[in-house]
């Protein structure tokens, strides 16, 4: 799998009307799309989506494969996913180190897996099964977690071993690292340093907020990217030459606002090139 080039932004339906294709209009280097949101899309989005696909490369980021589940993903869904990826010529596809369904019942939320060797085996099997079906390599993202299941491995040991066993790449979400580091009291930079950074395919950044009721940071993807996450991105880009992108899934602002955040990210990204 070759590296993704440039900076990305999550494509959301709310942006469609503001996306134009003349040279003066804003467009990221690539868009990240969530297949579950676009495999079946409302009729009025279709034409614009096709136009965007013809003008800007897509990277796909799924949410429902449930790689940590006790069941393999359904073939019917994988076939729809493969058709989608093939149709839009998408090489890069990523998912999460988590599960979102159990016994085939969906929770529609990314749930924390027990960090054990057995879970590594289970997830590796599921990853290989998906890769064989889709005919593509998979990247897996370090997820946020608000609860720690009984585990025998540290999070970084689990991730590194899973990358080794499965052969998958790592989608490094630095916002998730920051959120987890605060919620579970560890050093975010040390955590990033402990990961097998040679296997990172690209980087996620997003916003979070502090929830007073549960006294935790919540990875909401509903605010602008926080200062600490930008700092962690800078730190990471000093170590590896990898593309970042911004996710925004809630309280979605106009594209012009996201453009400002994107520019901020591009500055950080470009600086790493001049440093390099």
């Amino acid at each position: 799998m070759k590296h993704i080039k440039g900076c990305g932004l999550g494509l959301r339906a709310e942006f469609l009307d503001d996306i134009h294709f003349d040279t003066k209009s804003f467009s990221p280097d690539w868009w990240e799309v969530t297949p579950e949101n676009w495999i079946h899309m409302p009729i009025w989005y279709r034409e614009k989506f096709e136009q965007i696909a013809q003008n800007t490369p897509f990277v796909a980021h799924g949410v429902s494969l449930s790689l940590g589940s006790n069941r393999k993903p359904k073939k019917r869904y994988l076939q729809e996913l493969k058709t989608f990826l093939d149709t839009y010529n998408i090489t890069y596809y990523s998912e999460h180190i988590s599960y979102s369904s159990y016994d085939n019942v969906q929770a529609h939320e990314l749930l924390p897996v027990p960090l054990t060797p057995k879970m590594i085996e289970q997830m590796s099997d599921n990853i290989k099964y998906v890769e064989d079906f889709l005919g593509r390599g998979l990247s897996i993202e370090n997820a946020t977690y608000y609860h720690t299941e009984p585990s025998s491995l540290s999070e970084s040991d689990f991730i590194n071993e899973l990358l080794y066993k499965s052969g998958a790449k790592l989608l490094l979400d630095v916002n998730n690292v920051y959120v987890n580091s605060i919620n579970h009291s560890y050093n975010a930079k040390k955590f990033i340093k402990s990961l097998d950074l040679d296997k990172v395919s690209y980087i996620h950044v997003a916003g979070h907020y502090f929830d007073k009721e549960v006294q935790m940071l919540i990875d909401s993807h509903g605010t602008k990217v926080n200062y600490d996450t930008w700092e962690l991105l800078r730190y990471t880009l000093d170590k590896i030459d990898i593309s970042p992108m911004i996710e925004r899934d809630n309280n979605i602002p106009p594209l012009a606002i996201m453009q400002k955040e994107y520019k901020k990210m591009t500055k950080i990204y470009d600086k790493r090139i001049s440093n390099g």
Partner: protein
Amino acid sequence: MIKEFPMDEKKIQKNFIQQINGKKKVQKKSIGVYKYLVHHSFFEVLTNAYPEFYTIIKNQNLEKEFDRSIFKFMQKNAVSPYIWQMPNEYRKFLKKSKYFKKISYLNDLLHFEYSELFIFMQKPPMAKSFKFKVSKKFILSPHCTLHKYNYDVVNKNFTHKEDYFILGYFDNHTQQVVYRPLNNLLFSFLKTLNSTLNLNKNLRLFLNKNELSFELYEKEFKIVLEELYIQKVLIV
């Protein structure tokens, strides 16, 4: 470094899931966070898809029953990876459940409210354009729903029970879903339309089966069917 640690991962995951979906009591505050997040996303999807239903829930102070039904639904019935299909799974679950039994028109209302989303989410048919001919074979477009309701859902009148035969379809001109009442005869004809036979043959068989004169009904049917073809309800 990997340490040996005997544990049953499946049991751990099942236990976690059961606390989130309300089958078991939440044992830790941190698991409660997930219970809240999962319930919240189900609640948001369902109330967005069913605004009329949710208004009734609020007006009749049925919020607690609604919450209980969501948790019960989460335990077994949400199986699609596509969130947009969740409201229909919930409707099917409610139909077989003990919830909201006092609302006799519930299934009609949910079916109707979901039908708009369903029609919008269908892939546009590759419809060929040509002059309408009964010698051609037609199918119903995936961009339409054909359903018999027991209540006047289109006008939100739930006081009187009667048969309502409703065709819903995507109107290319207005880019909206249009609901059109049909008579029983046309409804039954469209329901039984056989895509392997041409329209004329379909019509003959149908009228014959219902002991109706082809000569008498042919013209009337053809006018309506041509109209439906123009609306892209009938496609080749």
